[in-house]
């Protein structure tokens, strides 16, 4: 495996990580928007339930954020301990060996 191949793998991985993080950010933003809008809707319908709805909103917003963290963990894995380099090296070795 030569330097050009390794560079290409890193470059494509960087692009992939960018897309992954963008998708996680977008999903998180949509989630926040939905949770907040539904809470406001609920408060508008039944103002007396406001404390309960607000508390539930905080809890579910925290829950919703756990998904982007999981995605973030995978993105960091690809970025700092790229598993595709090893896989490509094995594939090249197998191809050269056969």
């Amino acid at each position, binding site marked *: 495996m030569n330097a050009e191949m390794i560079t290409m793998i890193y470059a494509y991985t960087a692009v992939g990580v960018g897309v992954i993080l963008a998708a996680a950010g977008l999903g998180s933003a949509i989630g926040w928007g939905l949770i907040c809008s539904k809470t406001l809707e609920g408060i508008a319908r039944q103002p007396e339930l406001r404390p309960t709805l607000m508390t539930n909103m905080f*809890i*579910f917003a*925290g*829950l919703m954020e756990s998904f982007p*963290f999981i995605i973030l963990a995978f993105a960091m*894995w690809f*970025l700092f*301990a790229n598993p595709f380099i090893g896989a490509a090296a094995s594939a090249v070795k197998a191809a050269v060996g056969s």
Partner: protein
Amino acid sequence: MFQTGLVLIGVGIAAYAKGQHGIEAALYGGAVALANTLMLVRRIERVGAVVSVSVQRGMALLYISAVLRFVFVLAALATGLGFFKLAPLPLIGTFVGAQAAYILISTRTHDR
């Protein structure tokens, strides 16, 4: 409690599969997940107290907390994988497992 138990199970599996390096990485991943949950729980309590006085301040605290936790997890994982060169699979596996456990437990608790 359940999350801590799951982290310990993850550490056990990592120790069996990868030895000393696996234990270190799994402990690190689990610690990041537990710290993240602790930060979230403390912030929810704080926001719950503040929101009764000022909703806008409560929402601002919530957004700041989200950004802080995101940066914390990003920095912690980058340090673990990039600087300490810990084994990625046990680290990520324990972190993701602990996060998933938190989601499951919280959802089940609120369903009741």
